[in-house]
């Protein structure tokens, strides 16, 4: 579909941050963070509550303007681009706290998102019912996420777990090249967590993924590299084994020897 990176640049950097800083009256929520994500990365972002993970996502996606630093999307500087422009260039996200449309059905929500992506001005004035292709695409996506049975119900009446899945589906409807997932499984019961993780893992290999997650088992199953944020700054970055072995990370975050074992176990299982 949207071939944003030409074949020549394949394997190059999908998303990069250089020296990002964000101050909120007095506190520094993001402290000189630099990050490079190659195409197809499976990257996890971890850190204690209030470390600035969500803020970093907000900066990358354009919800917040950085106090300093640059953001490069597929090699292009998007620091001043609007959130909308970044989505059109293939950067999508999910929200830690559901940001859905209470009055719309999941089907309507996705058709709407798909029509935004297509941005066809002629079709803008046509009835929603005429958008067969978008409707079919929405149904396919909904079924993939196990939302087929509730697609015509008002979002506000859905169970929390279903809404969480819709949150992911909505980001996927943008067909992103880079997808930032802010605790997609937060508050979801265990059985359904796997469903979400599986859906994410099944995404095409060239889609770049960033996952914020507190559940270490999930992080180690998913990630090929991990960045650790502490009080806004990058404390370390490395492979899951390196991160699990790091005394620093264990001290500020993992707080136990079993993490190493979990990591090794998860790797072997994968």
């Amino acid at each position, binding site marked *: 579909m949207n071939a944003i990176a030409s074949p020549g640049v394949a394997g190059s950097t999908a998303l990069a941050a250089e020296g990002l800083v964000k101050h909120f009256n007095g506190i520094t929520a993001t402290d000189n963070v630099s990050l490079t994500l190659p195409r197809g990365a499976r990257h996890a972002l971890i850190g204690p509550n209030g470390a600035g993970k969500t803020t970093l996502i907000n900066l990358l996606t354009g919800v917040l303007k950085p106090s300093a630093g640059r953001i490069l999307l597929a090699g292009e500087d998007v620091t001043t681009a609007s959130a909308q422009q970044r*989505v059109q260039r293939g950067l999508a996200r999910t*929200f830690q706290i559901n940001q859905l449309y209470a009055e719309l059905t999941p*089907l309507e929500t996705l058709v709407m998102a798909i029509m935004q992506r297509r941005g066809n001005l002629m079709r803008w004035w046509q009835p*929603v*019912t005429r958008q067969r292709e978008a409707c079919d695409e929405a149904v396919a996506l909904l079924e993939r996420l196990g939302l*087929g049975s509730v697609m015509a119900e008002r979002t506000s009446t859905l169970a929390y777990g279903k809404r969480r899945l819709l949150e992911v589906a909505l980001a996927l409807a943008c067909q992103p090249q880079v997808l930032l997932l802010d605790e997609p499984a937060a508050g979801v019961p265990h059985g359904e967590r796997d469903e979400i993780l599986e859906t994410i893992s099944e995404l095409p290999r060239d889609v770049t993924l960033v996952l914020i997650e507190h559940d270490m088992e999930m992080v180690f199953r998913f990630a090929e590299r991990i960045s650790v944020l502490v009080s806004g700054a990058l404390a370390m970055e490395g492979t899951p084994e390196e991160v699990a072995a790091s005394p620093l990370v264990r001290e500020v975050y993992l707080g136990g020897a079993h993490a190493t074992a979990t990591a090794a176990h998860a790797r072997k299982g994968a």
Partner: protein
Amino acid sequence: MSAVSETGLASRAAAHASLVAARRLRPAEIAFWLMPIAGYFLFPDRLALLSEIAILGLFALSLDILLGFAGIVSLGHAAFFGLGAYTAGILGKYGWTEPLSGLAIAALVAGAVGFITSFLVLRGNDLTRLMVTLGVSLMLAEAANRLGWLTGGADGLTGVMIGPVFGVFEFDIFGVTAYWYAVGVLFVLFCLARYLASSVFGLTLRGIKGNSLRMAAIGAPVNLNLVTAYTIGAAYAGVAGGLLAQTTQFASLDVLEFQRSAEVLLVLLIGGSGYLYGGLIGAVLFKLMHDLLSDLTPQYWQFWLGILLVVLVLSSREGVRGLYLRVAARFARSRHPGRKGGAA
């Protein structure tokens, strides 16, 4: 994209059917639109009032496009109503007497001003929007007051001449032509609004009203949609104002007054916003109430208006639609005692 399973096909069809069901023409709608015809035969001597209802309904519909669909609050919607009224009136006064083109120009002028001022209301929260819309409408009212040579100032714009509709139907002293003209324009514009509401654009507006943060995060041009909605709403209001000036052959400063902006909000409050019919139902009830109460105490209509506003807001702003939904929910519950009542 080759082999589609049978269940896949079935669910696609079901999905499509659910979208279609959401915009199907309901019997109640047909019944609603028979009312103007019934009104004509039942109250042939109250056609002026019925025309006013149609015009107020169109004005409230225009506000509904802003408030009910795009979620833009306005405390100065009379600005566009007044612009349309003065445009159509001035055209008629200076020789452009063809009514439909006069209305079209009124819509264009109001829409153009709406387009320009829409950029002012994009920024800021509800409070800023309320203040800015109020400020813009007061500026226009002051301008109309100052430009007495054009608008007639405090004396009003007199000498408005309007030619026959379609070159055939002269405006008569019984207000028959005026009535059908107003109702016809209302009907056509309502159908257009209904069509727009069911379009991708309409869905996008509902999305923006529901969650504009997420709308930006799925790459929607939020501001472009808001500007479009504001412009359309302004143009609709302009047509309503134009209709008033043409059917009464008069326009005065009160078309731009703050009271009119407040009144149309109340109309929408009575009828309920966001489903297109609210403005029309509200207009019927409002005008009937006005008629009744100002017969009782002609001078103190404003008092009842105020009481109504206070009561409606205190009763959590549901209007007649909320009332209807609650009664319907209770009715459904009593018929199916086993089921829990749906969220009304």
